């Protein structure tokens, strides 16, 4: 890449940021949670992460109460309520009536229509766009787990919902907690101020062990089973690069103050194998037949190596996957005058280390969210997280197709839409795609 491209600003948020700015403050804040009253919380998605998130949200502000739960499976809502009732940390703040337990494929619409002020979202990522849109349309503040989408259409829906939230004075905070860690916040101020010079390269990693695989429960349809095993299917999880590695990719984008302009990637699936369990699932769902069992193995990769080329020409590595071997998790950024661990330290011509308090980011993100609501200055991270999500999705598309792709193409031309429409979401057959070959056609 030419040096001319390397010079100048590394900020590349482009049209998206401009739109947001134009909309900011366009509408008066009419949301009733402002001030000192009780903020009523609802949880959408009662799995492990949802149970964690609602507790962190309750801990984030003493004036919160949880009043509604929603999940695809009714049993999950009841189990979650029982657990919260027993949890000594939140005595008197768990007030969930039976008619505030919502289940089924339309549970996000039911909870959006309820009297909650804020919804914590932690279902399978594929549904997030429509869930976020429903919540914002209904005037709810949102804490959403990452990622916020699994395809390009989903990212665009999140961007639309975020613009709407801006107009309506609603908050959207996302569970990319690194953005709420004080050590990183202080560090990135300094990186952006040029303390390590112009950025010339970086790396980010999330390579870890394998994941769970669930069998079929009694009376479960294929789609319900698939939703329970969401991680194994790209349309539901976005693949590991989107579901998990997004944290580190988001940090890379934070370094450069925007998404990459070009992405090259390669990947594959050499080790993920659930043959025995998948055959059992196949038999249970298909009257004892093992024909076509392979689809129950899932379609995600087990590794992707990607390169992000940012606006100033710097090329950064992304290294992700699941499997045997050395686990990696973290980031590093290098500039013309030094380097940083992206956590709280830089070295080189100048040296600095963060020494202040550093509360857990997974709690702090809720503190920041709730405070912003009370202060009448709602945080809105929607577009930023949609961009980071789209970066991960772009890398996945590059790996699945073997094509180098540009940000312009992703945002303006790519028609990818993997998640079936809401009307098709009902107990019945699942939605399956083949494992990508590495030279799939671009959509």
């Amino acid at each position, binding site marked *: 890449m030419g040096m001319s491209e*390397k010079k100048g600003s590394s900020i590349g948020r482009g049209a998206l940021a401009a739109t947001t700015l134009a909309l900011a403050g366009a509408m008066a804040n009419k949301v009733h949670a402002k001030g000192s009253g009780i903020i009523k919380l609802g949880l959408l998605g009662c799995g492990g992460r949802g149970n964690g998130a609602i507790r962190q949200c309750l801990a984030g502000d003493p004036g919160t109460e949880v009043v509604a739960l929603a999940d695809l499976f009714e049993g999950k809502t009841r189990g979650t309520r029982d657990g919260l009732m027993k949890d000594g940390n939140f005595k008197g703040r768990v007030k969930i009536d039976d008619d505030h337990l919502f289940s089924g494929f339309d549970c996000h619409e039911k909870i959006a229509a309820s009297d909650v002020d804020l919804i914590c979202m932690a279902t399978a990522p594929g549904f997030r766009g429509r869930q976020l849109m429903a919540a914002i349309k209904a005037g709810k503040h949102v804490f959403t787990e990452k990622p916020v989408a699994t395809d390009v259409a989903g990212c665009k829906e999140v961007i639309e919902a975020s613009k709407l939230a801006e107009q309506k004075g609603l908050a959207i905070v996302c569970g990319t907690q690194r953005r709420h860690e004080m050590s990183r916040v202080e560090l990135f101020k300094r990186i952006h101020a040029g303390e390590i010079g112009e950025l010339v390269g970086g790396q980010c990693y999330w*390579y870890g062990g394998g994941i769970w695989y669930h069998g079929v429960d009694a009376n479960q349809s294929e789609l319900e089973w698939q939703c329970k095993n969401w991680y194994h299917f790209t349309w539901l999880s976005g693949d590991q690069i989107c579901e998990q590695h997004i944290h580190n990719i988001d940090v890379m984008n934070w370094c450069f103050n925007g998404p990459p302009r070009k992405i090259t990637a390669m990947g594959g699936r050499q080790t993920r194998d659930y043959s025995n369990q998948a055959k059992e699932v196949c038999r249970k769902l298909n009257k004892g037949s093992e024909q076509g069992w392979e689809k129950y193995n899932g379609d995600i990769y*087990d*590794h992707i*190596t990607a390169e992000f080329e940012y606006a100033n020409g710097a090329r950064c590595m992304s*290294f992700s996957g699941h499997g045997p*071997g050395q686990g990696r998790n973290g980031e590093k950024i290098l500039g*013309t005058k030094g380097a940083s661990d992206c956590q709280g330290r830089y070295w080189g011509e100048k040296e600095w280390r963060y020494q202040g308090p550093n509360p857990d980011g997974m709690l702090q993100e809720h503190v920041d969210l709730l405070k912003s609501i009370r202060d009448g200055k709602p945080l809105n991270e929607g577009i930023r997280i949609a961009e980071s999500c789209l970066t991960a999705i772009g890398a996945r598309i590059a790996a699945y197709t073997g094509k180098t792709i540009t940000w312009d193409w992703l945002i303006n031309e790519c028609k990818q839409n993997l998640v079936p429409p809401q009307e098709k979401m009902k107990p019945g057959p699942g939605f399956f795609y083949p494992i990508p070959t*590495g*030279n799939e056609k671009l959509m």
Partner: protein
Amino acid sequence: MTRRSFVKTGAVAAAGATALSAHLGHHLVFADANAKVRIGVIGCGKRGAEAARACAKIEGVQVTALADVFQDQVDALKAELKVANALVGFDAAAKLLALKDVDAVLLTSVSAFRPQQFAAAIEAGKHVFLEAPAAICLAGVRMVQAAAAKAGEKKLSVVTGLNGRHDPACIETMKRIRDGAIGTIQSAQCYSNVGVAEPVRKQAHASDVENQMRNYRSYVWLSGDHICDRHVNNLDILNWAFNALPDSVHGLGSRQCHKGEEYGNVYDHFGIEYAYPNDIRTISMCRTIEGTEERIGERLAGTKGVSNGRGVIEGANAWKYDGPKVDPLVQALTDLVKAIQTGTPVNDGQAAAESALTAVLGRESAYSRLQFKRSAFEAKCTQSLLPPQDLKLGPMPVKPPAMPGPYVWEGFPTGEGGKKK
């Protein structure tokens, strides 16, 4: 003897290259400038034929002998270049090396055989064009290092087929990078995403070994996988620019698209991180999947500028190579001939061995998904893919492709990962 301490003329390798030849110095210096440099070609496939043709065009050079395992490989070239002596079979290389009217050999056979052929060539007192990769396994690397050292002692020339080492654009760029033109390198990438696969169709009448040798790129035991076969050229540029070998490696890869029998047991892509001294981490990518984006080259980004490693420097010390453009293969052979004619030996053995080692490190890390230090791998790994000396045309079962987890070599540095802080 070496610019870095990593070369250890280990016991295994030293055993391969025995006592000095009694004929030491026999053809070392061409007192008579009019005498022809006589070339023998070991390995008459596509690359061997290309190199032989290039040699035939160089003034003062004559191709005098050909050797290949297969008759048809030598036949065409024999007629084309009017070569008197054509040898066929697994012992053809040894027979050629015994010929008195051969001053230098082109080692362009299937990669797996190169370390042993190189050691034998130096033993026989021949100058060598050493095609890249020089080796495809650690034992082979050791053998090449020992033979290269012996070549130095015997004042024999060794010229590598690595495509940067005899390209003036590359040489001039590297000089400037070494002199600090781009400052301290902070980030680097190299690619061999070729976007094609070239499997050779199986012949029903042929033996397994013949079929596999004719389709050598698809078999790890013969090519070392395509990270060795092609990407070694790009890895060499990184080693050269850093003036160092990577300290540690962590690789990913798989066989995602090419699963058919014609693809043997190689992977179709590798995405690897090599960490050079001072924890400067680099990206290496190589891919042979049909229909995927082509990208071949390197990028070096330093504190003062950026370079492609091959003729362009941007930044504070911007510069562009404007000398003659050469074919690196022709230039390497020309340099070899000139070194022989003038009696001023050149020896690329070190770069050849180190680039091969770098490729092997990446492959082994990707096959195992283990992150390890080069020092630990070099010290402990017992890996050898050197073919048996009594190899014959016959059955050869194909080992399954590497599966991370079960894949391991004795002495693999599994425990000491070089895990980063």
